[in-house]
């Protein structure tokens, strides 16, 4: 297959080493902000990786992935509000709620293809957004403060910045390991085959719908985990996390890093969010640069950063 040493592997390894050592740097330099920033990046990278499973490997362009961030977050927030603080309850509920939402939305939207699918996933995520805005008991538009982070019976302390960062990183790496197994499994090959040529897959005996739906549910569940982490990270959850531009951000991260590559979404998330941070320090109007930059990436950079590195490897 690929060579033992390649630019994409080197960059991936470098990035992983950086992520692992980041808390150390933060402690030594006293730069606490960077740890906060990267906790957020790691969580959103997890969300992007889950989107990559359906979009990159499965060819299902969902424009409503941020809905799961909200569902996972609200599961934690609402349970905390109702006095259930244990993460052993909160997190499974977050995952289950995401899975159920994905099952219903997937069953409906997978009846369609292409543009329709994009618009429908977007519309349903918007519905979730409005529903959350209508939850007067849980803050409505203003959102819901999570006064106490999920408790894991003393195993990890989520209020400890470093512990929480490593928990997020462990979740990210765990999910990526899972995706790695899935895409090389029987199931994963079928899903990728369906992306490549649905007619052929039907002809050799695979019904498309149920494989796509299961993949859609797995991806949504993974993103629900990111939602639970995000609510703990910000101690707050509001309809804004489900706003459609957030779904757009996740798509951009996946494309920027490289669709259908294992670590592409992570690289994409790091680059996108760090760029956003840097640009917003330089100018208040950072989106004025970011917007056209996206256009340029789409026009000239198909395959994202991973694709670029791959071309470098091949010389």
């Amino acid at each position, binding site marked *: 297959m690929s060579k033992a040493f390649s630019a994409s592997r080197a960059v991936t390894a470098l990035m992983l080493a950086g992520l692992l050592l980041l808390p150390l740097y933060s402690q030594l330099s006293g730069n606490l902000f960077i740890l906060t920033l990267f906790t957020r990046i790691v969580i959103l990278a997890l969300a992007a990786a889950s989107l990559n499973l359906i*979009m990159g490997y499965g060819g299902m*362009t969902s*424009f409503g992935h941020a809905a799961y961030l909200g569902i996972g977050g609200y599961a934690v927030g609402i349970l905390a509000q109702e006095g259930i603080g244990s993460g052993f309850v909160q997190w499974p509920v977050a995952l289950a709620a995401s899975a159920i939402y994905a099952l219903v939305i997937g069953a*409906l*939207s997978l*009846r*369609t293809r*292409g*543009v*329709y699918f*994009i*618009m*429908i996933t*977007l*519309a*349903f995520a*918007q*519905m979730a957004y*409005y*529903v959350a*805005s*209508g*939850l*007067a*008991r849980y803050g*409505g538009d203003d959102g819901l403060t999570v006064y106490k982070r999920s408790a894991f019976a003393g195993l990890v302390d989520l209020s400890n910045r470093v512990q929480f960062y490593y928990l997020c990183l462990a979740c990210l790496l765990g999910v990526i390991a899972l995706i790695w197994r899935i895409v090389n499994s029987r199931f994963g090959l079928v899903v990728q085959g369906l992306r490549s040529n649905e007619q052929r897959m039907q002809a050799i005996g695979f019904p498309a719908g149920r494989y796509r739906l299961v993949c859609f549910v797995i991806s949504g569940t993974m993103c629900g985990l990111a939602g639970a982490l995000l609510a703990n990270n910000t101690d707050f959850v509001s309809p804004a996390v489900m706003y*459609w*531009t957030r779904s*757009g951000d996740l*798509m*951009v991260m996946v*494309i920027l890093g490289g669709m259908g590559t294992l670590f592409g979404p992570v690289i994409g998330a790091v680059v996108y969010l760090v760029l956003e941070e840097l640009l917003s320090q330089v100018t208040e*109007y*950072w*989106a*004025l640069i*970011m*917007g*056209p*930059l*996206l*256009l340029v*990436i*789409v*026009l000239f950079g*198909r395959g994202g950063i991973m694709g670029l590195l791959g071309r470098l490897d091949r010389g």
Partner: protein
Amino acid sequence: MLLVVEQFLNGLQFGLLLFLLAAGLTLVFGIMDLVNLAHGSLYMMGAYFAATFAAWTGSFLLGALLALGATLLLGIVLEVTALRPLYGRDHLDHVLATFGLILFFNEAVRLIWGPAGLALPLPAWLTVPVPILSGIYYPAYRLAIIAVALVVALLLYVGVMRTRIGMLIRAGASNREMIGALGINIKLLYTLVFGLGAALAGLAGLMQAPILTVQIGMGENILILAFVIIVIGGIGSIRGAFLAAIFVGMIDTMGRAFLPNLLRQVLSSTAASTAAPALSSMLIYLLMAIVLVVRPEGLFPANRR
């Protein structure tokens, strides 16, 4: 009674406004196979242009006319510079590129007009309430919106159904290769169609401007409603977009107005007031879900084979 008539007219007005937005979107989809998220930005630009030009000229009508021309021009420039390279590419590319355009437009507006919203005051003759039935008054301006939108819808219908360009547009919506085969200048047709769509979005935006504040991001939520309408109506179908838009406008308006009371009949009043806002904002999406189950290709698909 009074409330019902008023809400009916509100629903009609909202639906017609949505139609103006959805018509351009569905034509661009159907003919150019282009997913344009920035359609909502054109709506926003229409409103900003109108507010600015009206302030300059001191005339609401003159400002509106200038704004219409400006969005048409903006649409043409946008098509020629940014969107042309996207034709024939993956829908995902369209989504991302036009997502980038939204970021750009929002930020450009913030830079030029500042973060605070603008107001577009109405001339006095449009603010008077007009008697429509005995004892029932309705704002003249909202009636004007209904009239203008109906005229535009009629023109659009006649234009698409009766004229030569309209024939090409319909041919393009159901079979894209065909217009090429007919030896038509596709580039020009695309530019015209996109410009038309932009002008329609601008018209919707500038008409909505006096009712709501002119602000950044105003085109985004309404764009998603336009998507729902297209899904319900069927891509590329003007007729489908019209009927679905009226339907969605009515259901959304009526739902918000009457659902809380209806719920109060069945639920306890606290439960009803908790559930009503969430439920009424779900209504049109539930409608979309039902259409998807029954007819995944929409109610009036343009390219029925």
